[in-house]
């Protein structure tokens, strides 16, 4: 079992969700987050003072998958979030030790799907 965390541009969320849907990956948790990468954000003007870039809005999705679904999950996220511009985001993959379905108390791979 793997735990996939992807952080990317908020305007790409609908594209990523559509791609995941196509691969029949339905279970996703989405959060609004703030962050910045090497691009350091966009300068804003408040009351006519130009201010250096600060943290930017990003979106974070988290998906638990069985190993055989890992590659298509990653492919779907990349396809949806890729623009080729700086700041497209990152995907992190972690090993997942355990998963419990609260309704039935099932555990392991069967509990993920």
């Amino acid at each position, binding site marked *: 079992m793997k735990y996939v965390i992807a952080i990317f541009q908020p305007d790409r969320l609908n594209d990523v969700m559509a791609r995941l849907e196509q691969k029949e990956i339905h279970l996703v948790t989405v959060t609004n987050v703030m962050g910045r990468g090497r691009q350091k954000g966009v300068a*804003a*003007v*408040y*009351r*006519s*003072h*130009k*201010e250096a870039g*600060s943290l930017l809005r990003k979106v974070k999705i988290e998906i638990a998958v069985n190993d055989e679904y890992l590659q298509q999950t990653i492919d779907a996220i990349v396809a949806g979030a890729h623009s080729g511009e700086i700041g497209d985001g990152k995907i992190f993959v972690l090993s997942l030790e355990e998963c419990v379905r609260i309704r039935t108390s099932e555990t392991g791979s069967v509990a993920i799907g």
Partner: protein
Amino acid sequence: MSELRRGLRPALRLGAAIAVLLAASPAAAQDGGIDKGDTAWVLVSSALVLLMTPALAFFYGGLVRRKNVLSILMQCFLCLSLMTILWVMFGFSLAFAPDALGGLVGGGDYFFLRGVTFEPWGSTTIPGQLFMVFQGMFAIITPALMVGAFAERMKFSAICLFMGLWLLLVYCPVAHWVWGGAGGFFGLGGDGALDFAGGTVVHINAGVSALVASLLLGRRQGYPTSTSPPHNLPFAVLGTGLLWFGWFGFNAGSALAANEQAVNAFVTTHVATAAAALVWGGLDWMRHKRPTLLGVITGAVSGLVAITPACGFVSPLGAICVGGGASLVAYFAVVKLKPRLGYDDSLDVFGVHGVAGIWGAIATGLWATSASPNSTVDGLFYGNPAQVLIQLKAVAFTIVWAAVVSFVLLKVIDLVLGLRVGEHEERIGLDLTEHREVAYTLVD
């Protein structure tokens, strides 16, 4: 100052002067009785001016960080309540009773509203109680304007004490000099200084005191890099819209009658504000390649401030110049002057109210025209350069009084209570540390 306001002292004290004024404004003469139309308009205007303080609360509240929004709203509501009670007990009398201390303030004749009746006030056609409550709304918003200068770092207890004393020791004397019929050395209104609705009394007074407060308090932690962005610009826009709306009561209501002068003040107020909003937006567009919303609403408020002393005396075309000029000078103050001098006037009370207020007072001496309804005074551009000097004197008196008395008050309060919250409290935010509340929740 409107002629109606000039005749405010009780008839016994004014003698011959009032007879002249009555002859000059026939509308006011009607048997010396109450006029229903005038009374209705000033009643509505009083409610409009009241609305400006909650509007200001949202204008300022939207511009601070989310951890301090309630403290701003609370400070504005403090003014709504505390200033009302002080006004009824002492303030109205100090501003509008016959001279005491050689004209420095009004005396105690109207303490606790003794002698303030439902009979026509002075040479007006509205009841004395209505004049009192209309003026009371001005006494509420003027100290509230200063909230923006010491936002995000001043102790609430110190604010209560400062605001209350400021009303009685700064606002009331200046209101007395300009509108209260002060004689002698302080008689700015008697000198012929024009301040239709409060450019000196309200805006210069609050703006200069705000600058003094921000200098004495010192900068916020992290200023200027991490005190931005505003946490809710739509609140600030809502507040500005309601301020614009309420300002019609402030300015057109200051005619104290439903007459041509009120209409002129209404039109010039509206036109100047529009011009000022356009100019600030244009400046941003040129300098930063984008017109910003915060720039446009800041311009609008600068225009409202600047037209306040002028609205009853200038033409609509003059108002465009007053409003457009207001954005130019306030823009300079906010964008150039403040960073250069390094003071942290959090929400630009001095830049917007002080500087645009000074501009408005001077501009009144430039564009005033006797062609305006019920107006007899011309400014520089209509052949009377002396008016500019009279305006400058009123500006200078107000600046000196506001700066000196505010400085002393704040120094004394600093010794007694301390002005500033602790470093930890400032970091956590005033909502939680001063008021034990938070504005927004993250979970249900």
